[in-house]
């Protein structure tokens, strides 16, 4: 190459020759074949579809789990119990069909009190003392081995006031441990009483989910604050992009009867937002009297 003009000419000749050797026919049919034919062919839709499929699989997996040997909380459906799916509470909130999990207590059911008339919310206790059901038991010990039986709630020894549940309970909780598909929580009432509960986690294995086992000591309760905290700066909690989980709360009604509540939370950022929930009293797994949605904010 002796000069710039010659170089430019050679470049042009080369590119032109190269380009002219290429023949391509426009083909609308081929273009249409490449066009996404279904909504889920779009990348965004595929991502959402995959996420939904993972959620469904996680939920199905959780539903198949047996009772937690430590918490006694069943994460799977009990064949003897059914959760009504059509009843709504007076506020019009439908029960969460994704949390159709029944829980029985080893200490449950005896001839007991019915805190409310059948027309109102509250458990109906059978008139005869049944055998301890084979199902899950309420949480009795912490997973780290520290004995932490469910302490009696403020209603122990007497008929509970369901409105306490609605208005005062579950305003705070704390993740204590993570074990497989379960999370351990502390739930405290406004009176300071606490209970360890187990929750079923639907989406903990989603990509991007971060979880860790805590030391079990937890942090001081703070009323009105959600449980999930900064994944990096705190020693507890877990972080998912958008998981949901169901909190199962057991309240000891009396020496032989437990009352359980189910709540579904959706994690948004570093907070858990209560989406819906309901509570019931289970004396026998197949004797669910009523379900009611509640809308307690946390």
């Amino acid at each position, binding site marked *: *190459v002796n000069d710039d003009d010659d170089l430019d000419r050679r470049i042009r000749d*080369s590119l*032109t020759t*190269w380009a002219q050797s290429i*023949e391509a*026919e426009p083909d*609308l*049919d081929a273009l*249409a074949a490449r066009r996404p034919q279904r909504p889920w062919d779009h990348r965004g839709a595929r991502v959402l579809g995959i996420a939904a499929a993972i959620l469904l699989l996680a939920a199905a997996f959780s539903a198949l789990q047996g009772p937690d040997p430590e918490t006694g909380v069943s994460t799977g459906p009990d064949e003897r119990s059914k959760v009504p799916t059509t009843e709504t509470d007076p506020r019009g909130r439908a029960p969460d069909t994704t949390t159709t999990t029944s829980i029985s207590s080893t200490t449950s059911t005896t001839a007991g009190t019915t805190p409310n008339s059948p027309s109102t919310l509250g458990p109906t206790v059978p008139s005869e003392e049944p055998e301890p059901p084979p199902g899950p038991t309420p949480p009795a010990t912490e997973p780290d081995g520290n004995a932490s039986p469910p302490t009696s709630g403020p209603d122990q020894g007497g008929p509970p006031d369901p409105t306490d549940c609605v208005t005062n309970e579950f305003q705070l909780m704390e993740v204590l441990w993570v074990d497989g598909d379960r999370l351990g929580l502390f739930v405290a009432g406004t009176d300071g009483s606490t209970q360890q509960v187990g929750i079923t986690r639907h989406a903990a294995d989603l990509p991007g989910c971060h979880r860790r086992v805590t030391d079990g000591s937890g942090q001081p309760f703070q009323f009105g604050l959600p449980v999930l905290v900064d994944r990096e700066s705190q020693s507890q909690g877990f972080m998912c992009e958008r998981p949901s989980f169901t909190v199962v709360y057991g309240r000891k009604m009396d020496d032989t009867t437990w009352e359980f509540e189910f709540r579904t939370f959706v994690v948004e950022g570093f907070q858990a937002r209560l989406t819906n929930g309901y509570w019931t009293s289970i004396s026998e797994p197949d004797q669910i009297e009523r379900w009611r949605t509640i809308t307690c904010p946390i």
Partner: protein
Amino acid sequence: MTEPGGPPVLHAVPAGTDADSAVAPTVEWPPEFVELYQDRYEAMVRYATLLVSSKERAEEMTQEAFLQLHRKWDRVNNPRAYLRTTVTNLCRSHHRRHALEVRRQPAPPDHAVLGADEMRDAIAGLPFRQRAVVVLRFYEDLPEAEIAQLLGCATGTVASSLHRALARLRKEMAS
């Protein structure tokens, strides 16, 4: 083919084809889009081939570029410019993904154009920006300002890239 009450459209499925048995779905293409597609498809394939050295890849990218244009057809003011920019960006992405797989195209059997093939190989060996600048400058005959806009860089960057590319090509041809 004209749809009642609407602009004329083309269907990917030929007339008389059973839509249920056809592989390709029925797609309504705006007539202006079809016109642009038929007018610019081959040119875009050639342009993309000069950037990626593979006609098959070039056709894929060109089709993808047309599909992206079709999705934004109502919002694109300059479809031709949008098309070329999209093809360029797709080629750039291709280079990034396959940076370690860049290979020079084998010399064609026609020895009569050996000089041109050596230059082709040298151009194909340039980094993507330099290669794109050379193609846009000497094949598309675009001014540096337009090249800069297309590549999303400053005009000075285009000038320096072209200078380095020419120096490298000159060196390659001299060796």
